[in-house]
């Protein structure tokens, strides 16, 4: 219930949790930020201890006292161990690949143990989406969790608040902490995949020749670059255990297509962006050279993963004319 309240009142949460988001770089969970409370099971444990104590007094069982006190000490030590399981851990977030609106952004969260002991069973949970994952962080090593955060809007999606929680070792205490690292994921507009024809060539300076297979001239191989489409990787060469190579074509260069905001006068902003995103994907798939024009933004004709990403990013970040 308190958590629900804090989710609604971020400033109260900031004050309570002792940090102001977003936090740059590596976030270290200092003691001030690690909270701990008994779990339901913990209260049951306390009840067990009370019964043991009463039994020991009633029957004057010295070893009963010893057992009760040993378990009480174990509970105390367990509390320290639970807090320690989170304390001074370092959190960082890796790069998240852009996604389309409606998909889920995959944030890679790295938990650096920074300790000589391992930190088992640590739950990382995205507070808003409740996407979560449990990881064991080895001693002095790194644990990785992937949080899938639904992308509901185009543009930059910040990771938001992440809760880290553990109940190790006895399950009778729950220790948790919140972080909100500075990490974001680019969300492209939702591509509209209607089977609309590509805009006709007349609308652009260039002429569109229907791209027919076999028309493209294979011109050779070059070293693979991260932005190359997997369709163009020379898989046969890879299979021969050589380096990744990319096939180059020359024939495609002939066609050039303008994807223009102005083509879609009857739509609102988001619908236009969706349609344009769909066209970008379609154009990339069919292998033509394409260019993008938005009010105030113009991307020259090109092709390939990098070009496609640039176009989609422009669509994602479009702020209006």
């Amino acid at each position, binding site marked *: 219930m308190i958590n629900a309240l804090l989710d609604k009142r971020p400033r109260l949460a900031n004050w309570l949790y002792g940090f102001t988001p977003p936090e*740059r*770089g590596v976030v270290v969970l200092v*003691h001030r930020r690690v909270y701990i409370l008994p779990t339901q*099971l913990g209260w*049951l444990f306390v009840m*067990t201890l009370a019964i*043991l104590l*009463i*039994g020991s*007094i*009633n*029957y*004057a*069982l*010295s*070893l*009963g*006292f*010893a*057992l*009760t*006190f*040993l*378990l*009480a*000490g*174990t509970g*105390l*030590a*367990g*509390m*320290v*161990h639970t*807090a*320690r399981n989170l*304390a*001074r851990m370092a959190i960082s977030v890796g790069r998240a690949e852009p996604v389309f609106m409606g998909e889920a952004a995959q944030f890679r969260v790295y938990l650096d143990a*920074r*300790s*000589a*002991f*391992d930190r*088992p*069973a640590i*739950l990382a949970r995205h507070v808003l*989406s*409740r*996407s*979560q994952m*449990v990881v*064991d962080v080895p001693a*002095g090593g790194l644990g990785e969790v992937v949080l899938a955060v*639904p992308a509901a809007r185009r543009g930059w999606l910040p990771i938001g608040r992440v809760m880290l*929680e*553990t*109940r*190790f*070792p*006895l*399950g009778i205490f729950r220790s948790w902490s919140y972080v909100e690292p500075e990490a974001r994921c680019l969300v492209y507009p939702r591509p509209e995949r209607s089977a609309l024809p590509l805009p006709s060539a007349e609308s652009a300076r260039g002429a569109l020749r229907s791209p027919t297979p076999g028309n493209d001239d294979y011109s050779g191989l070059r070293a693979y670059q991260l932005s190359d489409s997997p369709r163009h990787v020379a898989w046969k060469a890879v299979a021969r255990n050589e380096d990744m190579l990319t096939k180059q074509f020359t024939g495609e260069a002939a066609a050039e297509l303008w994807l223009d905001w102005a083509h879609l006068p009857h739509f609102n902003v988001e619908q236009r962006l969706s349609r344009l995103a769909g066209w970008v994907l379609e154009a990339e798939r069919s292998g033509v050279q394409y260019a993008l024009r938005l009010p105030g933004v113009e991307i020259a004709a090109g092709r390939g993963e990098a070009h496609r990403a640039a176009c989609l990013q422009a669509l994602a970040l479009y702020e209006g004319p």
Partner: protein
Amino acid sequence: MKALPHPLSPDVRPLTLRDLTWLSASLAIVIAPHALRAPWWLTLLTLCLYGWRFYSMLSRAPLPSRWLVIAVAFIGMLGVWMEYRTLFGRQAGVLLLMLFSGLKLLESRHHRDGAVAAFLGYFLIITNFLYTQSIPTALVMCVGVFAITATLIGFSAPNRSARDNLRTAALLLAHAAPAALVLFVLFPRVNGPLWGLPQDAYAGMTGLSDTMSPGNLSQLALSDAIVFRATFEGEPPPQPLRYWRGPVLWDFDGRTWSAGLGHLVNFQPPRGAGRSYRYSVLLEPHNRFWLFTLETAASLPERARMSFDGQVFSTSPVRSRLRYDMVSMVNPEREPNETRSTLNRALRLPAEYNKRTLALAEGWRRAGGSDADMLTRALDFLRGGRFSYTLEPPLLGVNSVDEFLFDTKAGFCEHFASAFTVLMRAAGVPARVVTGYQGGDLNPVDQIITVRQSDAHAWTEVFIAGRGWVRVDPTAAAMPSRVDIGLARALPQDQGLPLLMRPSMEWLRGARYRWEALSHKWNVWVLGYNPERQRDLMLSFGMRDADWHKLTAVLFTFLGAMTLALLVWSLRRLTRPDPVQKAWQAFCRKLAARGVVRAPQEGPRDYSTRAARALPAARRPILRIGALYIALRYGNGADKPATARLQRLVRQLELA
């Protein structure tokens, strides 16, 4: 958006085979002693429940329905009721708990149920202590605590190796030990019980009773059980003087002696020049009121009273180990006067039994002589009668004294004491039977005298005008060695004695002495740690009248300090910097001082390359440090020589 189930919540994580194995193994450790005590069918039923749970785990069969579990529980309870006629007695209750551990296991689906079963396991440990709190039990139960704790850890870290979990359990218990010790010493103790205990709570405690019939004591003498231990300040009294006074018996019905009615008197210490002994007694619980003291008590312990016949009583039954300090005087001056009614009671005999004995004593009386003469004649009769001393006396009928004195002529101390007292009374000398213990084993290791049931003894006190009540030991008269050297040597070789009492077992006795010295320490300091002892201990630490306010304050101070120490420990383990990282940071500082500051997002490779370019004079060492750091940090872990090399390189790095 629908909330996902919480993966760390024990409500949703199902028990795995590993969890189940750990759980049932640790439960098995703690119920094993009960299982050996239980009726065979209950042990079998419990084992079946465990087996059933494993079967459904392995065959992926569904667990039995709730109703079936309840039905099994009902059958078990019915069986226990038929066996014990109660469900709430100690034995019945504990055995039901053992059964419930199996039932709980059978309905355990998730980690939460498993954790509840583990807590039940903790509770089962304490039930073992109702039966015995010996050192071996404590050790086995320590293993139980360890196993259950490791099981709980396994629940909260399902992917961790069992070895790691065991190590964590050991670490947790090691961290718990100091807090446990502080709590044990400082937690304000109160005297139980808080409410009524089940009726059979103290069943099965053996020991002297307030009646004595032929065969009682010789049965008791077969038991090796410890009655009490006495620690003397200075030299303990020699064996023949060690008469430990117990119940005094007045009334005789021809066969059985009983204590009858008595009353308490104001204690008056004995006068005289007899030697005094100061000692403390650690009495095992026997569920009776009386305390054992060396004759004759010259002081009274706290919360104790003295009866008119010199017996010391506690104000409540001794139901837990009791420690009391005493002073006793050997051969004091005795009170020469006694009331008429008491003397009359000490002369009463049933006229219809033991006619031959009565006739014999009346003959002596008629022949004339003082009370002292009667005493001598009776002792002479016993000495000259070729009596034999045996732990296995023949069975006697209603005229038990006649049969013993004239027919069987073989008996244990109760036969001698009974017969002698009857002779005295018949001869007109007031006499009573005193039961108690004689001797006790002096442990040469710690100088503590251990008195066992096998030292049970009975003797007589006669009232001689002008001298008061005088102790006469007819057994000693007939068999002097019984009192001088102890029971073991007084009996014919190896006659039915407990193994360790046999003289031929000398080598075993040495080991036993050492073990008993240890057990005594255990009994005094661990098991006998009660409110009184706590107060004494606090006093020796300089804390006067330690009430629960003070104790709690000290306790919480200690616990707080301990938790803090634990936190500091965990911090130290955290902040101890990785030597590789430390060397790298020193390297970065050195370069930063020369103007090459590492950008936050700059990796070690980029940084060292850039630095090498900026500081060409130190190009080679900078690049080597960068490469070495990358290898150590991101390679297959750091090894010692490589780390040392990195540290040396950083130290020797000269940036002119």
